[in-house]
């Protein structure tokens, strides 16, 4: 597939590497030099793009966050820490952090609980589990935009599926995305629906990789299923859990499509997460500096979190 793109870079170095070797020391040095060169060649395009489109924006953001600029005016105006001052003193910021925190926390908790529960279920030898696992995974690959639009319709209190479901219980559907109280839960439901199968399959793999001998011993001890799960499966799955937590946290922090389509951060600020805030300030409100300040907050939040998680992950992995 990638043959054509690769051949041009591969040609000359392939020849170079077939030159016969002389003395062992000489050849070791040659080999090393060849390796250095190839390493640089192989990794350079990838790294260059990462630096230009990953690291530079991060650094540039720091500079930008000290300015006031609508992207249209001739030059950014240097305003020092003003953006941060406004950001940290505004009541909206507190609310936004709160919304972001709840959003991330709840989606991650659900990712873990629902993921492990479904994985346990899929791990049982019951006919049809394979179909269900395929089904459950499929929303994960659907376009976020499409999923958001479908659920927007489902959540419509007058014409959507929600009215039908609530009417089955003789109740009236909440207004979901139109309600300060229910908008965030609506987004959470969609996020969980979309990633359920993915998390479950990660857990399933984790479960299937567990050694079977411990279970045999436990059965002989007469341990019940719940105890076996609690004292054997769950602790052994900790590295998996750590991974699920990291991935879900990153995904939740960055969630954008759904929020953009379903609530645009509203009603009020009820679903304004950091991610939406940055986009809104930067591209809609014309406050690039303010967006950059928000971006920096997000960057450090994520960095701190991941550092902590990675350490747990590492510890788990090296056991």
């Amino acid at each position: 597939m990638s043959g054509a793109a690769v051949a041009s870079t591969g040609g000359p170095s392939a020849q170079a590497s077939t030159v016969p070797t002389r003395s062992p020391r000489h050849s070791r040095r040659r080999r090393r030099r060849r390796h250095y060169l190839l390493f640089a060649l192989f990794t350079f395009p990838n790294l260059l793009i990462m630096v230009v489109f990953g690291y530079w924006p991060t650094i540039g953001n720091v500079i930008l966050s000290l300015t006031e600029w609508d992207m249209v005016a001739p030059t950014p105006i240097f305003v020092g820490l003003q953006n941060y001052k406004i950001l940290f003193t505004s009541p909206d910021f507190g609310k936004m952090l709160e919304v972001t925190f709840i959003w991330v926390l709840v989606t991650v908790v659900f990712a873990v609980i629902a993921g492990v529960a479904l994985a346990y279920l899929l791990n049982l030898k019951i006919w049809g589990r394979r179909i269900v696992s395929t089904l459950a995974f499929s929303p994960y690959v659907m376009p976020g935009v499409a999923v958001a639009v479908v659920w927007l319709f489902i959540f419509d209190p007058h014409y959507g599926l929600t009215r039908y479901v609530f009417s089955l219980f003789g109740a009236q559907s909440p207004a979901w995305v139109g309600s300060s109280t229910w908008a965030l839960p609506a987004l959470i439901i969609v996020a969980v629906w979309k990633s359920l199968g993915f998390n479950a399959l990660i857990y399933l793999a984790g479960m299937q990789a567990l050694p079977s001998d411990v279970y045999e011993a436990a059965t002989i001890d007469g341990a019940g299923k719940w105890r076996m799960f609690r004292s054997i499966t769950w602790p052994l799955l900790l590295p998996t859990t750590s991974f699920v937590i990291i991935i879900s946290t990153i995904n939740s922090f960055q969630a954008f499509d759904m929020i953009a389509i379903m609530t645009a951060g509203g009603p009020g600020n009820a679903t304004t997460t950091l991610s939406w805030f940055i986009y809104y300030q930067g591209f809609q409100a014309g406050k690039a500096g303010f967006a950059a300040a928000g971006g920096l907050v997000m960057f450090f939040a994520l960095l701190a979190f991941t550092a902590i998680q990675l350490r747990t992950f590492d510890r788990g992995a090296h056991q």
Partner: protein
Amino acid sequence: MTATLTQDATGRQEPPRRRKRSHRAHGDPTQPGVVGTVVGAILLVVTAGVILVPVLWLISAAFKPNSEIYEWPIEWIPSKATMQNFITAWESAPLARFFFNSLILVIVGTTVKTSLAVFSAFAFVFLEFPGKKYVFLLVLGVLMVPNNVTLVINYITISDLGLVNTYAGILLPGIASAFGTFLLRQHFMGLEREVFEAAEVDGAGAVRQLFSFAIPLARPAVVTVALLGAIDEWNSYIWPLIVVNSDQMRTVSLGLQFLKVTDGLQQWGPIMAGTLMIMIPVLLLFLFAQKSITTGFVGAATK
């Protein structure tokens, strides 16, 4: 049947020890009792329902005449299935062009992205370089940079490069896949090093090692990286939203927006029809390549 599943989820290079399933018969937590089977089966059906109902709702609405969409009580089966919603959706914007654009982006983007990831992953595993561990941290570090943080400045960079509203402009910022590099590196590390050492002694250079051994041996992982890249590209929304400003360059995700307009009046029928249209290609891809996709994702998590 069950054996395949186990293999799928845990990757192909499974040690033979675990194939002997007879050993675990007693303490096997995967063997439910009668009650367990019944409860489990019910829960499986419930899960399937939770996933399927929204999709059925989408399909039902896509084929309903507009008047029936607003009917109460709800009719699941349209009184007569109509293609009108699809026609309306198709006419509301140059959707054919949008599909074409998305397809081009998927093909080119996936090819380049996968190549970049394969080359650097190989380098990280099989080539010597002083401090390459730290260089690899550079790759991992990018995973920590939240997408939205980069938007404004990447837009400025792309516009300085004169690439706004071009395929290159859409693809470039996302073309280096840290995740793909990471995943492939994990897989390459799992390969038997002796094979490569022997090959090197035989005079096979790095490029030959890459094409003759590394890629074939880690083929499932490479395919996975490609598939994930393809799915990402098809689904991507926020970046094209920012960087594209012509019908010539718009992608399918952006096309959906056109159906969502009008002054407070939502045309749910055409919207659902359009949604279904952009979902189908990616779902088909998933159904055909399901194993590779799940294996890859899961492989990264467990290795």
